[in-house]
């Protein structure tokens, strides 16, 4: 069970959070301009890497805020937590 440092509330148990998958996949501003392949790229394709992965988490049973987490998927270590809209850190 992770211990997650919500940027708004502080350290809380993982059971208070839900994971929202890979981060930094912005919804296209003009979806109608995209062909099927480009839209599918946004809609379906995720990297699922081993190593540092940037992902979205939501403090669902707390402040309900979304934020970003840089997590090493090989050992679940959280390297960095940063707010929505911020750029991914260099790790």
């Amino acid at each position: 069970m992770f211990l997650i440092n919500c940027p708004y509330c502080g350290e809380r148990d993982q059971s208070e959070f839900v994971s929202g998958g890979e981060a930094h996949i912005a919804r296209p501003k003009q979806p109608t301009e995209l062909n099927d392949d480009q839209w599918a790229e946004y809609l379906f394709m995720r990297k699922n890497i081993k190593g540092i992965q940037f992902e979205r988490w939501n403090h669902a049973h707390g402040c309900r805020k979304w934020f970003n987490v840089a997590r090493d998927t090989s050992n679940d270590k959280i390297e960095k937590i940063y707010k929505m809209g911020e750029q991914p850190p260099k790790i």
Partner: protein
Amino acid sequence: MSKNLRINNKQFVDETRKLSFIFNGKKLYGYKGDTLASALLSNDIHLVGRSFKYHRPRGIMTSGSEEPNAILQIGNDDALTDPNVRATEIELYDGLICNSQNCWPSVKFDIGGINNFLSPLLPAGFYYKTFMWPASFWEKYEYFIRKSAGLGKSPTKQDPDMYDHRYMHCDILIVGGGVSGLIAAKIASDDNKKVLLLEDKELLGGSLIYDDNDISKIDNQKSSEWLKKLIENIKNDKNIIIKTRTSLAAYHNYNFLLARQNLTDHLSVNDRNNKIRQRLYKIRAKKVIISTGAIERPQVFHNNDRPGIMLASAVKKYIDYYGVRCGLENVIFTNNDSAYETALSLHKSGTKLNAIIDIRDNSSSEIVNKVKSLGIQIYWNHTVVNTKGYKRINKIIIMKLNDKGNDVIGKKIELNCDCLAISGGWTPMVHLFTQSGGKLRFDNKDNIFVPDKTNLDQLSIGSAKGDFELDDVLKNSIKDTKKFLNIENSNFDKIDVKCSKEKEKKNIWLLPSDRPLSKTKPFLDYQNDSTAKDIKLALREGFKSIEHVKRYTTTGMGTDQGKLANMHALGIVADTTNTNMGDLGTTTFRPPYTPLTFGTIVGRNVGQFFDIFRKTPMHEWHVENNAKFENVGQWKRAWYYPKDGETMHDAVQRESKAARESSGILDASTLGKIDIQGTDANEFLNRVYTNAWSKLQIGKCRYGLMLNEDGMVYDDGVTTRLSENHYLMTTTTGGAANVMSKLEDYLQTEWPELDVFLTSVTDHYATASVCGPNAKKIINKIFKDLDLSDESFPHMSFKEVKLGEINCRVMRISFTGELSYEINVEASYGKYIWEKCIEAGKEFNITPYGTETMHLLRAEKGFIIVGQDTDGTMTPVDLQMDWIISKKKYDFIGKRSLYRSDTIREDRKQLVGLLTDDPNEILEEGAQIVKDENKKPVDMLGHVTSSYFSPTLKKSIALAVLKEGKQLKGQKLLVPMIDKTIKVTVSDTIFLDKENERING
């Protein structure tokens, strides 16, 4: 106790408190402080069970959690009996009842024992090889296998005991209250850290607390005396919380650990009343120190499993701690110095020690010299080649080892022996370390796996990390703990330790015998009856990975997870395949470390607390009026209200007829309600719904369909514009929380520029929905001043009105097709308004209806239920709801997906109506629809999603999803059932009132 097995030892066992217990029907006695095992041994009982496969007699072998044999059924109460309890771990209490498990009819005469003579027919993989064919026989085999396998019996009644959960937080968690753990606790506490110290036994101190020889000394005191002072000191330390009888069950990532505390298992049954039996601690520790110690290894030789053969350290503990002799004719068989401590304890207690067999050439350590000086005969460079005695060992046969240690030479020597104390060295308890994800390193010198790399803030100390000699244990524990806690100095820095250093080491994983291996039974895993022979067979048959060998031979697969067996199994694999043990890797240990009862895991979440359920404010009324309930998400919703013994079908027919002919009332409080406010609320609705919202006027309602980004229908509901920038959205009952999360997600992450605020108000309002031709009259009776004319209050509009002091939001919306009003009030007025409606509707036979009738009424009108008629693969086009997709809007969630190559396929499954040729035949929901039954394989065209008998139409109606359904109207199809085939015709989805006239009453 006629044999005089008790020696005078008043330190840990209270001989003034005699306790009686019953073992296999026989009344016996022990003392307070005994374990069940020590009490049995004091009664000269070694034989406690039969082995799993061969049903060989087995005796108590250890004094701890690694015990493979002494596994008993405790208690004979159908609700309270506990299977698979290790006699070495359970403290004796007055009135304890226990029975051997794996034997029939009795432990002394066991019919399964015949397997022992059949054993050439029961090799490794026997079950896999034999019971494979013919496959159809498996069910027959299974019955016999399960019957003869017979580990303990589960309780058959509900567990009446109480269990508890508690969260704990600490700076330093120390697992194991032996000497290294105690020192670490003190160092941490002196540094002002909050320490939690767990010990699975009743008392702190580990094995040093009963160490009574003069060879090991700390600060010039007997080590046990020194330790007792430290324990007193720690008990008075405010920084240290001590939990005894508490064993660590699991070590998870982020230093999250679970520990189980036994609170009543050591009390007599009468003293347990109204007490919590066990407590599960959920611990979050900043740092963890593992000081779980080591367990002794057996030696692997022919017939090494007879009752009376025990670990040397256990023999020592039974004497020094419990004051119990395990035999009167003892022999020690060892490959290392530690068993010589047992020799000293036997000598000191006046217990006869016939000889020591040592596979080493010699040792001249202080402790061995001391034993030599006592005149005890030591057979150096010898091994045991066989043992005798069926139900209890009575003789051993020893021979000299050759130079290489791979064969025996010379004459056989026979020695009398009723207790053989064996020691094959020590294995650090690294289970918790590996559970936490730590990686091990193989130490070639000591033939042990020791903790190596970890990602967590943790440290292993003492013999858990591979230090076995007292001075190593103490000095390294002090040094490592200081470094781990970043401390310069401690009060232990000048500690002075004297002990006997082990000089010689020698290890032979499988000891040679004068017989060929195929004629011997050198056991590795006592619980699963796997021998060294089985391992070799598995290797010959081509199994290479240790994980495969383990499963094929079942070595290490018992309830003890192979605590004793694993190292020898690995060693024999390495020897046979000429591999370095370190390259083989170990098997994985998984939580729990020792078995947990289900009660501990679920804690208080039993019975009505198993899961939370939500009740509407009108719930009590439904109960009083005989409603049957169904679960919708966590809600308890009134399902139907049977009258005078009605079946569900009868009740639903009556309820729906009443709603169509006069009036019905539904508790709609469970619908999800989201309060939406902000200057961009309207734009927000445009983005999340498929239809257009810009022109919705204040006081008007609109139905909306919400998609996922993949274009599939996600939720639906009516949203009302309460004022300029204020909307109330309703969602499906089950989807409320998900819709809320999804909308929040878009607001926070995709559209943070929008000025919109969402609040879930589902629980804040109660909703009574009154429908039917007489609904207007009823509402008029309640709200006398409200203008209900179609001009003032048309369909899909809303009015705010007061009933006395109560603010009511009345919406004229309909899910049944009837004229219908929904009254929303603050939840606390819910029951009041409901009863008001019932009272006002009395003269119109207002009939409460449940979810089943609601489903029928809406199906007559062809209204979908998201989640019943859709399953996450239906687009609005598939649902024939093209009308709700705005052509003007540039974008909304899911829009782009509606013209992906897959979503525009003509042959997608589409929503249709179905009518059975026989109007009385009701289809089963989920039934498959086909065109041609004879062309195999039969093409499945779709399935029935909703099906009812309509009392208004007097025929059966159904909704279904069907491939190319839109093209198939009027087509005859088949619904094959198990006993018949039902003929159906594809129809329109609207069965009743296509002109929508009823909506106006």
